[in-house]
């Protein structure tokens, strides 16, 4: 199981800015190790965000997203106390889901 994400959701008016920092290697499949073998790709492919259980965003990522990815998006109509959950799935089928409360 991967390390937890850091999620921060801040409401300003009717818009909530959500910032997510995920812990993931995001190996692009281009690098070579000391023995000259290509390090196999290992990266987050799908990201889903939900607001109080309703899906608000789905994203597909390629291997070019940086290590320990950062994601920022804006949710409309979320209030303080609402739950924002983010879920990812990598190309090896590993998943991780974390939740934050809007402040």
């Amino acid at each position, binding site marked *: 199981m*991967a*390390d937890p994400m850091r999620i921060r959701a801040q409401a300003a008016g009717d*818009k909530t800015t959500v910032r997510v920092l995920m*812990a993931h*290697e*995001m*190996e*692009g499949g*281009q*690098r*070579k190790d000391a023995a000259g073998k290509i*390090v*196999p790709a*290992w990266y987050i*492919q*799908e990201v889903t*965000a939900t*607001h109080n259980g*309703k*899906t*608000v*965003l*789905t*994203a*597909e*990522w*390629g*291997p*070019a*997203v*940086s*290590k320990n*990815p*950062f*994601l*920022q*998006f*804006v*949710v*409309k*109509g979320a209030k303080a106390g609402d739950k924002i959950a983010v879920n990812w*799935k990598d*190309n*090896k*089928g590993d998943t991780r889901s974390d939740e934050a409360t809007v402040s």
Partner: protein
Amino acid sequence: MQTRRQALKKSAVVAGLLASTGLFPQFAFAAYNTAAFEAKNIQDALKALGAGAPVESKDITVTGPDIAENGAVVPLGVSTTLAGVKSMLIMVEKNPASLTALFHMTDSVEPSFSTRAKMGQSSDVYAIALMGDGKVLFAKKEVKVTLGGCGG
């Protein structure tokens, strides 16, 4: 935080499992558009997504640094003021695979996203919006990279 050693060990185990079952990771999820993410250039990636030729638009904004010292972490953002956007894409033209990130919109999210990407070399970065009516709009910005972040 996972150490590099743990990560490598884990990846070796999973790679072994995959090899023994003959199952490749990209077949695990039907929704993931492998063809688009493996496309070498912007045109092919758009074709794989079923989108037409892009038209430059002032209503799309791409944010990023003029000069990125470290190509492994380049903060990039896309946003638009237009309504009716279906998906937004970030593409780096000269990366081994152009398509970096693809965001599917819903009504409850603003068409504005930021993330960080790896860039192999100085290149134009494209923000592309796939509109609900089938139009494809783009904006681009050149980002110079001092130290590439893809190989080594």
